[in-house]
């Protein structure tokens, strides 16, 4: 069995190595992906780099492509995240109380309730606000500097996971309850799709952010696209934050959302 696997792996590998010699050189600006095919005009990425600033006023081309040019893709990407969260909920979550209730007298849902955790508690108290502030910066500046909704959302979710790891899951759940994170995940998608539908009220296509110019009261459609992208990224960040924490909370407590690791 093992040598059969070895043969399969080596066969796949050697086929790919055989194809490697036809690929463009490392760092080549004239490869089909970077420079377009001869006689077929510019490649799509060249158009993105050259036109993004004119059409959207968003310096971060990656964000512009993600949230505007490929808006549908990113919207359903967010739905995939939500679906993963729902799948984990369906697989793991135990809704009935199977075990005896935890001794409430010992449990204190404050960060430094336990004297043995005073170092961890103090560190969390200092570190978590900074992490969350940085996450908000990454989301809010996602269209000007490296960052965006997914990245900022993951950092924000990680701050809650840090709280859950450093103390216990109940402490984290007390600050970000199950009702809240499921709600927040849905609100994120709602914000994203809402920006799409809003454009339709002005008689334009779904996710056509240029149509939102009367709402944002900007001069010209490019600035409206830039603002709408920020709104959409905030929606993405909500969903990602909530689902990251939901995945951790369910996995760490075997679906009971109690005690945790």
């Amino acid at each position, binding site marked *: 069995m093992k040598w059969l696997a*070895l043969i399969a792996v080596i066969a796949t590998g050697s086929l*790919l190595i055989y194809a490697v010699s036809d690929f463009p050189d490392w*760092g080549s600006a004239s490869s089909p992906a970077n420079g377009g095919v001869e006689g077929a005009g510019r490649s799509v990425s060249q158009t993105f780099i050259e036109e993004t600033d004119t059409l959207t006023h968003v310096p971060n081309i*990656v964000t512009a492509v993600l949230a505007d040019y490929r808006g549908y893709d990113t919207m359903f990407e967010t739905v995939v995240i939500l679906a993963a969260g729902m799948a984990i909920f369906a697989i793991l979550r135990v809704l009935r109380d199977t075990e005896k209730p935890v001794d409430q007298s010992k449990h204190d849902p404050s960060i430094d309730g336990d004297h043995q955790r005073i170092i961890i508690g103090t560190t969390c108290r200092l570190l978590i606000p900074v992490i969350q502030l940085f996450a908000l910066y990454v989301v809010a500046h996602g269209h000007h500097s490296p960052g965006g909704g997914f990245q900022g959302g993951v950092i924000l979710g990680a701050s809650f996971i840090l709280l859950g790891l450093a103390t216990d899951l109940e402490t984290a759940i007390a600050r970000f309850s199950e009702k809240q994170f499921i709600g927040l995940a849905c609100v994120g998608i709602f914000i994203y799709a809402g920006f799409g539908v809003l454009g339709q009220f002005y008689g334009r296509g779904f996710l056509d952010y240029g149509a939102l110019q009367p709402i944002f009261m900007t001069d010209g459609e490019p600035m409206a696209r830039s603002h709408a992208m920020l709104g959409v990224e905030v929606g993405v960040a909500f969903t990602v934050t909530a689902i*990251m924490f939901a995945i951790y909370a369910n996995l760490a407590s075997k679906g009971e959302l109690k005690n945790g690791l």
Partner: protein
Amino acid sequence: MREFIENFVQPHFNYWAYVIIMMIGLWALIAKRNLIKKLIGMSIFQTAIILFYVSLGVKDGATIPIAPHHVAGDHADAHDSEHAESHDDHKAHPKPVADDYSNPLPHVLMLTAIVVGVATLGVALAVSQSLFKDFGTLEEDEILEQIKSGDYYD
């Protein structure tokens, strides 16, 4: 040997790296019996694909795909660039040159791939946790044994 490396490996070393990493991941996916090790293999495989895509977007001497922002007169420019769409030759700002910025498209695609990777990994871990609850093991052959012998359905 040296000639082979200079002609075939050096200009394509990113592809060689991705093929080798991918083979490691594929090996773990096929040959390992432990489900967690299979998941590790899946993540290695994904990493190889991400490396492949991102390395396709590299251009010599190019910077990250973030164009410099207009500094002064942002709103006045909005009108100018509206006009600029029709008069291509006359512009307030020089257009970014495509060769100066690395290809943004693979970055976007891989951002989505990473996100899907996190989602699949989360669901896979949840499934293996509930498998462990039912069977008491994560070894694939032991689980199959238990299913075949009918212990599971009691």
